[in-house]
């Protein structure tokens, strides 16, 4: 019964797409620019594109904040001015090294990238998601402020949040960090929920979701740097001894500091792997979903039968991919937090075994 119903729903969804695509294909007769389609969805932008109706783009313009490197001072203006081309000497590069970024013309005519602190799509997404996260967590914390948690247990949303917080704290933080986990618990919990909510919002296909935040290398770089500094600033002296003078045969340390060199490289590869793992996983997830959905548009010119059949496949695969991405959203947040916790735990070895 329920399986038949599911199949029915899928066909209905597929049916919804077909006429639109058929008419669209007749009207526009344009080749789908696959590169633009894929990268346009995952990269940062100066406006938040919502949809396109009959060739007309509907998007939310965002503030552009740039400081000129050619001595023209700071400029703040709406990104909608950039749609027509140059504005106040700034324009979005269409090609070259700074493609899709705001550039200004240098005295010799070369494109120069100004200091660009624009509220881009990702920045706005970060703000919205952070506000949401603050709302959820502070709302949960409020319950505990108003109730005596020793006397009663929360229900509903607070209960779910409590379950998740305890899960992260008990399964990841306590196990991986070790004794003085309490000091690190707020950072690791913040990292987990920050990544998780940004991952989830990235899957939501419409505003205010859909910004590819955790699939952006700058975001994951900052997160990895936070972990890097947490690990290295609070590492104890045993940690530094293990890096600079590890327990290995002396010829591995003197005259050629082979092991210290490897350990020091390791200090940087650990956060680097954190950065790349999160970035690549989320980006790949976005690409996969986009790719599966692109099948519908790519086959639009192949006739109703092929298109209809593949649309069903694409919708089924799309649902599957979205479910997978939900899983990945959680797993990547979990993995990032767990590895950060492990690195922190490694930076605080208890006693030297000598």
């Amino acid at each position, binding site marked *: 019964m329920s399986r038949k119903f599911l199949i029915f729903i899928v066909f209905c969804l597929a049916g919804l797409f077909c006429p639109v695509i058929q008419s669209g294909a007749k009207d526009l007769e344009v080749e789908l620019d696959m590169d633009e389609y894929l*990268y346009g969805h*995952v*990269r*940062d932008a100066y406006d938040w594109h919502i949809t396109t109706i009959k060739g007309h783009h509907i998007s939310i313009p965002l503030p552009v*904040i740039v400081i000129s490197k050619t001595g023209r001072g700071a400029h703040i203006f709406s990104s909608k001015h950039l749609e027509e081309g140059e504005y106040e000497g700034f324009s979005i590069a269409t090609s070259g090294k700074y*493609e*899709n*970024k705001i550039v200004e013309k240098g005295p010799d005519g070369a494109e120069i990238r100004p*200091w*660009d*602190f*624009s*509220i*881009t799509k*990702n*920045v706005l997404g*970060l*703000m919205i998601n*952070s506000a949401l*996260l*603050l709302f959820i*967590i*502070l709302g*949960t*914390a409020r319950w*505990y*402020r108003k109730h005596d*948690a*020793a006397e009663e*247990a929360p229900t509903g949303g607070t209960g779910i*949040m*409590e379950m998740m*917080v*305890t899960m992260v*704290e008990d399964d990841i933080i306590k196990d991986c960090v070790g004794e003085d986990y309490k000091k690190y*618990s*707020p*950072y690791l*919990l*913040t990292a987990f*929920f*920050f990544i998780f909510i940004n991952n989830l919002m990235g899957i939501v296909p419409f505003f205010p979701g859909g910004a590819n935040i955790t699939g*952006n*290398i*700058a*975001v994951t*770089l*900052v*997160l990895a740097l*936070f972990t890097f500094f947490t690990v290295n600033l609070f590492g104890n002296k045993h940690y530094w001894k293990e890096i600079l003078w590890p327990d290995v045969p002396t010829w591995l340390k003197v005259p050629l500091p082979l092991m210290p060199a490897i350990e020091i490289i390791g200090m940087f590869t650990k956060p680097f792997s954190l950065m790349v793992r999160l970035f690549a996983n989320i*980006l790949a997830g976005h690409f996969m979903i986009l790719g599966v959905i692109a099948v519908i548009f790519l086959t639009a010119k192949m006739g109703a039968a092929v298109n209809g059949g593949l649309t069903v496949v694409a919708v089924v695969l799309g649902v599957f991919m979205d479910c997978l991405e939900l899983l990945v959203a959680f797993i990547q947040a979990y993995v990032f937090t767990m590895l950060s916790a492990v690195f922190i735990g490694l930076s605080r070895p208890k006693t030297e075994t000598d």
Partner: protein
Amino acid sequence: MSLITPDFGLLVWMTLIFGIVFFVLAKWGFPMITDSVQKRADRINESIKKAKEAEESLRNLASEQDAIVEKARKEQAKIMKEAAASRDALIEQAKVQARDEAAKIIDQARTQIAAEKESALRDVRKEVAMLSVAVAEKVMRKDLAQDSGRDELLRRLVDEIASSREQKN
């Protein structure tokens, strides 16, 4: 490729936003939640421990009760034994006392009897002496009345006295 080159502006914004989120949540968010949950967990653990202790003490109470009953029984037996012993002792003592008393009474009686006997003997002796004297008087009266025997007797008496004097001297 712009995908793998971190954008400086976004980096700054991300650092700022994440920093603020971290600060706020670390100050007012997560510690509140984790501490409360910890408090509840502690309370639950404590309650379980207390329940276990109560159960334990209840079990102990039963055995303690048994011990008390056992002790009381022992005490009872001991008291009974002691009572029996003291009763026996009392009886024994009473017997001894009675025997002593009886002995004493008998002794007294014996002394009294002896005294009585003595006095009776004395009386008898006295009587006998009196009787002898009376008899002797009568005999002497009769003898002295008869002239024939009187001289004889006198002479014998004088002799006797004289001899007893001589002997004394």
